[in-house]
């Protein structure tokens, strides 16, 4: 009986809302307004969106650069935690239906959704970051060789370590972050084959809080320092902040990830301990893609960003690795030349 009454209540309210809705005709502004330029750019973020101090923010930087340079019409949409592929697909379709002719999907989770949506909009140019799982004549796959950059910071860690004991803090235990771990370990072992690499992941999927939990990062790093490590690589998004805090408190060293973290305003307090960062330039990839569409030079298929092509590298800000930069660049040259093949999987 109660349920029936509740139904009645909801229906009544629903009717009321619908009535209100039909009073106001067209939605103000939004995607209906004509764009100043021929490109209308839609960007669908992964969970976290703009402001995650990591992966999504890197994409956002590329977007901002393109916007400033080309003055294009931009729409940014965010993903919600726990959503389904259908909801991701709906997001992409809404952008396409709204007249956005250039659409960027940030993160591998969009692959199944993009596969379905892209087929129905052949005139729209899509970019998918971090996945080659959706292919098509109008899809550019922007992928990165994170293991190669991680190899180089592994080399730096091994060269800077006095104890022969280094650490790796991964945000969430996913195949993506495992690529960072495998490359890093390979880099460390290339310099010091008998070095110890401590590995710790902060959370297990589907718990993705490990990318944004500095307290967990701090605890994990402190454990590693207590166990003898003196350099720790934080491949953990926003949790890296905690890793650097622990490094500072213990007089040890840290390595950043994704962007040149020495120069991030949010990390100004702890930047003294950041000797280098593994740089994954999602912003460059985004900007390149927009430029290619703008200049009518769009090419479908895989665009691999690695040490050879650029888009992956290591940062030198702060001058903490000036003394070993020559050695790191030797390894870099070997990887570019194909003499060293960096593994991507365990």
């Amino acid at each position, binding site marked *: *009986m*109660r*349920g*029936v*009454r*509740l*139904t009645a*209540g*909801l229906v*009544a*309210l629903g009717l009321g*809302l*619908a009535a*209100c*809705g*039909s009073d*106001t005709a067209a*939605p*103000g*502004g*939004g*995607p209906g307004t004509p764009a100043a330029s021929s490109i209308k750019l839609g960007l669908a973020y992964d969970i976290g969106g703009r402001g995650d101090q990591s992966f999504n923010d890197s994409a956002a930087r590329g977007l901002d650069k393109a916007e400033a340079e080309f003055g294009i019409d931009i*729409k940014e*949409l*965010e993903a*919600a*935690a*726990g*959503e*389904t*592929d*259908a*909801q991701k*697909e*709906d*997001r992409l*379709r*809404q*952008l396409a239906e*709204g007249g956005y002719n250039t659409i960027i999907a940030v993160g*591998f*989770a969009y*692959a*199944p959704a993009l596969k*379905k949506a892209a087929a*129905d909009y052949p005139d729209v140019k899509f970019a998918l970051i*971090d*996945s*080659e*799982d959706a292919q098509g004549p109008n899809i550019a*796959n922007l992928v990165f060789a994170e293991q190669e950059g991680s190899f180089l910071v592994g080399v730096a860690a091994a060269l800077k370590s006095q104890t022969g004991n280094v650490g790796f803090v991964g945000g969430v*235990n*996913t*195949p*993506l972050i495992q*690529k960072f771990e495998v490359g890093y370990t390979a880099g460390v072992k290339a310099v010091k084959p008998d070095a110890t690499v401590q590995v710790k992941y902060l959370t*297990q*999927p*589907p*718990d993705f809080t490990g990318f944004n939990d500095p307290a967990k990062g701090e605890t994990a790093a402190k454990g590693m320092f207590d166990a003898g490590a003196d350099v720790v690589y934080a491949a953990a998004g926003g949790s890296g902040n905690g890793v650097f805090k622990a490094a500072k408190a213990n007089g040890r060293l840290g390595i950043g990830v994704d962007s040149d973290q020495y120069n991030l305003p949010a990390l100004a307090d702890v930047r003294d301990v950041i000797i280098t960062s593994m740089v994954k330039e999602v912003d460059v990839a985004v900007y390149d893609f927009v430029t290619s569409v703008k200049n009518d030079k769009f090419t479908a298929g895989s665009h691999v960003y690695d040490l050879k092509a650029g888009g992956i590298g290591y940062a030198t800000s702060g001058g903490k690795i000036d003394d070993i930069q020559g050695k790191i660049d030797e390894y870099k040259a070997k990887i570019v030349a194909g003499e060293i093949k960096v593994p991507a999987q365990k």
Partner: protein
Amino acid sequence: MGRFSVRSVLLGLVAPVGALVFAALVCALILALTGNPPLDTVDAMATAAQRPRTLVNSLNSATQYYLAAVAVAIGFKMKLFNIGVDGQYRLAAMLSAALAGAAFMDGVPPFLRVAMTIVAAMLVGAAWSGLAALLKVTRGVSEVISTIMLNAIATYLVSYLLNPARLAENVPGSNNIGTRPITEGGQVPGIDYPGSTSKIFGLVFLAVLVGVVYWFVLSRTRFGFELKATGLSESAAVASGVSVQKMVVWSMLLSGAVAGLVGMPQLLGSSHSYSLDFPPGLGFIGIAVALLGRNHPVGMAVAALLWGFLDNAANALDVSGVPREIVLIMQGVIVLSVVVAYELVRRYRVRAEQRDVGRALGRTKTLEEVSA
């Protein structure tokens, strides 16, 4: 009597309607304060409601939310708080996906294969909630604590199993990892809906069936009566010969079995594999939907549809420039207002009944009647 029942009906309507109106006002206020015209938001939602794809996705979301809500409600009816629906369905979906996708299943006839998958999921869900039931009846561990902890353990167990060396394989060219995809014979086909590329989950009927069985068992069987009686007063139930221990075990097992179904529509209708992007958190949505629907089979269906629509309208809001987070605020405010409104109405009703009884006992006629 007539006067009394009119009041009862009105009071029944006051709570949900009042709560929703209050929630709408709060959301309008928040929208206005953050510089988003509330009417535009309503308009964007109304536009979304007319888009076939949004409707289909809302119904599909609601299917999962409803199953989760029924799982939670079975416990609620007995004052058992199964917070572990989330872990139960994830573990069940993962293991049954591994079973359904396994190579030896490719030759099994489709109907049998789907049935085996669903039964496996129910068994896994029941086993996982059964652990909490066992802890409660043998060691007196509160099911709230044990189910929350079992959620965390399920997360680790799934991560451990979701490994190329165990039950999963890498998705080629991607950073994703999942169980071997279920081939066509093991899938449940969707229902086409004109104007939408998304299909309605075939297992929407499973949710309806679960709702009917839930209603029947609770209101038409002795087991359902004993369940409700135990929830209302444990001591009274014991006095009338109900074994509370047995009821705890059975209701947790049933709750877990239904929880096992939560992931099935998505798994068999759309994902066809349990991978890193399989939707988590449905168990917690189920708690909110059960609260909103007052554990009633129809009430929860309406609540699930409302919840599903709000979730799927979020994209439309985002496109029209309204932050999608407003949907979360709406959902939170709706649940809080509904809970508060029902409590206020309940208190008012109790006072009104006491007044009525007092009046009936104190004097047989009112002053006016005596003087007349």
